[in-house]
């Protein structure tokens, strides 16, 4: 006989409200039904009242973790409508701030994840290291939470010599610390006991389920939008997709740790190749036409669709966030999992509900 119990919307491991109706047989999940709607803000409707430049700030507020990448993706989509050529220096600065987003997002997630399986000291360590990233991001963008850097036509702030020194110092400081926490996440007996073999998705299943980001790559799919032609600067920076074959919670964790090293490498390479010149090009007129832009956020691929009709307001903005793509995979991952492991499995998709509901 099965019982249906609620998981969330308020739960100690969930930073944001999402509800799951879990159908359990003894303590094993046999079915799960996600329920949303606690933080829907109607941001796609809200742009009716904002012009296409102001919409950048709306997009940055879709998420408090990957704010810069939302702004970057939106502005790149609008730039496609104008067929605008953006100064190379601006593109490099976007990459640097985007990778800072990824660094602090993954460190935040690793901390929450450690907390989720009861490893409090590991949680403290991850969040302590995250502070170093936030300090630099705050100095560069002027804000601790919403890292606003991108505008249609380029970026709004240049990197100073002081910013670059801070970035390099942060990279040097962070790398050995990540090695330390990696040892625990990857090799610790207790951690492995909780993660290995839990909520496994095969390579094919993760692909067909439309998952994105570390959830997709943790099942052996080497798919990362940073490899696409839409933002070809990553090819010049020696980007390499992080992938794990396990397909379980352990694999998804390993991908995120590998991506921390990759982000540090990308920041260093972007600084070493940072060209001189302008940081923005003037954009005149109003957007017309349609464009799709994709970038790789910390949680996976985000898809922006914009449609302009020659007025100052966009006719349509559509945002498909990575958590939106990953939530349906919970329907496939949770059956067979014991109730005590549900929080860990839910956390491995790194759910961002503000992104999902917009």
């Amino acid at each position: 006989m099965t019982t249906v119990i609620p998981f969330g919307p308020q739960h100690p491991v969930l930073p944001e409200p999402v509800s799951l109706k879990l159908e359990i047989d003894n303590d094993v999940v046999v079915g799960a039904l996600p329920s949303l709607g606690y933080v829907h803000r109607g941001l796609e409707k809200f742009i009716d009242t904002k012009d296409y430049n102001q919409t950048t700030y709306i997009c940055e507020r879709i998420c408090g973790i990957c704010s810069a990448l939302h702004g970057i993706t939106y502005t790149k989509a609008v730039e496609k409508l104008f067929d605008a050529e953006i100064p190379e220096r601006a593109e490099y600065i976007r990459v640097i701030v985007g990778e800072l987003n990824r660094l602090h997002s993954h460190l935040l997630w690793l901390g929450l994840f450690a907390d989720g399986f009861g490893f409090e000291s590991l949680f403290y360590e991850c969040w302590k290291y995250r502070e170093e990233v936030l300090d630099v991001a705050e100095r560069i963008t002027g804000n601790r939470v919403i890292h606003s850097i991108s505008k249609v036509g380029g970026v709004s702030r240049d990197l100073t010599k002081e910013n670059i020194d801070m970035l390099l110092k942060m990279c040097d400081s962070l790398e050995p610390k990540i090695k330390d926490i990696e040892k625990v996440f990857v090799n610790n007996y207790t951690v492995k006991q909780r993660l290995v073999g839990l909520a496994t998705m095969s390579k094919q299943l993760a692909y067909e389920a439309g998952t994105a980001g570390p959830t997709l790559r943790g099942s052996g799919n080497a798919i990362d939008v940073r490899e696409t032609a839409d933002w070809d600067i990553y090819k010049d920076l020696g980007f390499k997709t992080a992938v794990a074959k396990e397909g379980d919670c352990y694999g998804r964790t390993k991908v995120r740790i590998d991506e921390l090293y990759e982000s540090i490498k990308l920041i260093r390479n972007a600084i070493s190749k940072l060209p001189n010149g302008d940081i923005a090009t003037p954009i005149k007129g109003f957007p017309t036409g349609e464009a799709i832009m994709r970038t790789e956020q910390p949680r996976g691929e985000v898809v922006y669709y914009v449609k302009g009709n020659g007025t100052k307001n966009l006719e349509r903005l559509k945002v498909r966030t990575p958590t939106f793509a990953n939530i349906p995979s919970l329907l496939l991952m949770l059956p067979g999992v014991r109730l005590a492991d549900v929080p860990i499995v839910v956390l491995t998709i790194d759910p961002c509900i503000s992104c999902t509901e917009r």
Partner: protein
Amino acid sequence: MLENTIEATEIKSSGELLKTIEGLKSDGYRYSTMICLKANEGHDFIYVFEKDNKLKNLRYFVKPGEKPKSVSGIYLCALLIENEYQDLFGLTFEGLAIDYKGHLYLTPNSPKAPLA
């Protein structure tokens, strides 16, 4: 006529739509998203699929009053976006794998179909 539109294959009927999407799944395409736009009293759907980091788009016009067919039977992950459009555009999809009946985001007291 709008210029600078995205490349998309025009689909004429719901039968053709489902058949084409089944074909895309067999060819190894991943479901990325669906975009819904108001158009000529009806709605334009743009289905976005991805394979080898390249996008393939399908465009299908939903006539006024037409109940579009759900593709969640082919790609389960489509259920969330289709439910979202039931909320935001007041559409009714036929054959949804899980139907929230217009209450994925919206409560009974919310504005009705705010994007419609």
